[in-house]
């Protein structure tokens, strides 16, 4: 049992950036907007978070900067796709590429600088319970935020009127508009939320996970988050499962090598992707479930009075 404590802690922290970005993208896609720019938003979030924390000496200022940077990038995407009605797929890809490049440019002077890290929670007395203590009560603040966000997204989307409106806009924007709901505004807020979450995910990487900045440090996690949302059938709790599964298999692949299992390392590197896709596809086999949860207007441009 003692032996599992370290791995579980690592898996939870490895899953956090994926979870944050995927939850944000889930809300965005539920409102009908397909934002492929997650990787770019994560990258700008990561660099702005690191720069702000390094210049000010306050890690939490870095977290705030990461969120704002993600939102700024998302705002640009919203301008393109919601106001100017540009193609969502193309705009998202453009956001990814330019986000990665811009982040490298901004962060150029900060490569090779050690980061400060974010303090871990320490509830006196409770955190020292063996095994459960550190896992439940010894994490860093952002990991708790990710868990809270998962529950919050689920609750808001499926138990509140706001969530109903978001899903309505995503399923049939014409009807929603006819009913008087502000489609563009709802989508704008959903996109901004997605950007904030992606920025936070990026900030987590550069402030907590490996407190440093290097170009391309997101290493494709934005794409993984995008895939998680789809394979999890846009259901928040399945996104949590997918993120944890991916984190767990990634860690296991490295752990197995250390033990000395003779499997080729390249095969082990592909395991997280293969396993997560397989598991999520299998549990989402139900066609009715899929049809109910897929936002019917995903990726379709909306122009009132057309």
């Amino acid at each position, binding site marked *: 049992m003692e032996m599992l404590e370290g791995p579980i802690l690592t898996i939870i922290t490895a899953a956090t950036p994926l979870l944050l970005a995927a939850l944000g993208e889930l809300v965005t896609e539920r409102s009908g907007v397909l934002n492929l720019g997650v990787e770019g938003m994560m990258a700008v979030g990561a660099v702005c978070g690191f720069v702000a924390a390094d210049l000010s000496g306050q890690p939490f200022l870095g977290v705030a900067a990461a969120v704002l940077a993600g939102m700024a990038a998302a705002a640009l995407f919203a301008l393109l796709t919601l106001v100017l009605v540009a193609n969502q797929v193309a705009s998202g890809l453009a956001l990814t590429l330019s986000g990665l490049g811009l982040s490298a440019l901004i962060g150029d002077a900060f490569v*090779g600088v050690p980061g400060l*890290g974010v303090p871990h929670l320490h509830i006196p007395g409770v955190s020292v319970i063996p095994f459960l203590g550190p896992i439940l009560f010894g994490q860093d603040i952002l990991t708790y935020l990710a868990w809270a966000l998962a529950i919050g997204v689920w609750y808001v989307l499926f138990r509140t009127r706001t969530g109903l409106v978001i899903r309505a806009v995503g399923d049939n924007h014409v009807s929603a508009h006819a009913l008087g709901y502000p489609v563009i505004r709802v989508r704008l807020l959903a996109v901004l939320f997605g950007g904030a979450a992606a920025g936070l995910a990026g900030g987590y990487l550069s402030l907590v996970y490996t407190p440093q900045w*290097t170009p391309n440090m997101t*290493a494709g*996690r934005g794409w993984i988050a995008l895939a998680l949302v789809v394979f999890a059938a846009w259901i928040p709790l399945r996104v949590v499962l997918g993120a944890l599964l991916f984190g767990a298999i990634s860690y296991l692949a*490295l752990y197995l090598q250390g033990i000395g299992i003779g499997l080729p390392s390249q095969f082990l590197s592909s395991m997280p992707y293969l396993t997560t896709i397989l598991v999520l596809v299998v549990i989402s086999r139900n066609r009715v479930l899929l049809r109910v949860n897929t936002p019917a207007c995903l990726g379709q441009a909306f122009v009132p009075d057309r």
Partner: protein
Amino acid sequence: MQKFLAAVGAAAILAFAAGGAGAADKLKACFVYVGPHNDGGYSQQHDMGRQQVDKELGDKVETSFVENVAEGPDAERAIERLARGGCKIIFTTSFGFMDPTIKIAAKYPDVKFEHATGFKTAANVSTYNLRWYEGRYVMGQIAAKISKSGTAGYIVSFPIPEVIMGINAFMLGAQSVNPDFKVKIVWVNTWFDPGKEADAAKALFDQGADVLIQHTDSPAGMQVAEARGLHAFGQSSDMSKFGPKAHLASLIDNWGPYYVKRVKAVLDGSWKSTQTWAGFADDDIILGPLGNMPDDVKAMAQGTIDKIKSGQFFVFTGPIYKQDGTLAAKEGEKIDDATLLSLNWYVKGVDDKIPQ
């Protein structure tokens, strides 16, 4: 009309030639990096060498660099662009640039090429390498003295001879202090990925390793060691600021002196294709700064470094046994450079299989 066109043509050619001649005042020395020039590791050390060339020969030489060049077809394009652009000596600083360098060198016989850590040469291609294994032997000795669990974690990138040499030298050094010392190896299949390196470090520490050594380029592993109160060695550049309490030593590459020497050779026309393999002896690698260890360990490490520097001790001196038990070198016999440069077997005591 024809006379007019001829005159314009002649003027254009003259302008071109004049422009070309004007730019040929300073020798162009160009560098190709596999990572960012300020990665805090491998490529940064190459860049510091380039800056030394600027400092010492700035009046006669103009340097430039291309960074983040992926090994493969992109490398070919990057190197060719430099050769076409007037570079007279091009330093390609990663093993994976080997074949692209040879290919482009054949097309541009007037340009000199220097390829790091490779083994293919040509009339206008030299190779240069560092005997990192010398440093890794000493690191093995330090690890065996410092480790309480008797196990080290080793994060490695790709199964090329240089990496295998490093693992073997580390084990030989550790075994000279503790014959039962163990090493756990994780292949991350990349030279630089902080997230993955951090995960690998955590996995190794979770399995009982308490000293970390890496053959990858980011300081992520050092940060994990610092967070867990364990120890780690840095790679390529001084990583002590990433782990003030964890840092034992960093294997620092000092390319400056070699770069200055080679550029000077081009300037005075004495450049010839050579294969250089330097180590502690010429200060081309430095193991430092030694810290977070008891004084007797520091003294032992320094003593070994001095012995290697003076030529008194050669790391791969027998008796050395291969992983399968066969004898690779008899007592007192030294393994030759050619064998080392194509090394593809582990020494006895390494619990791993080389990936194919």
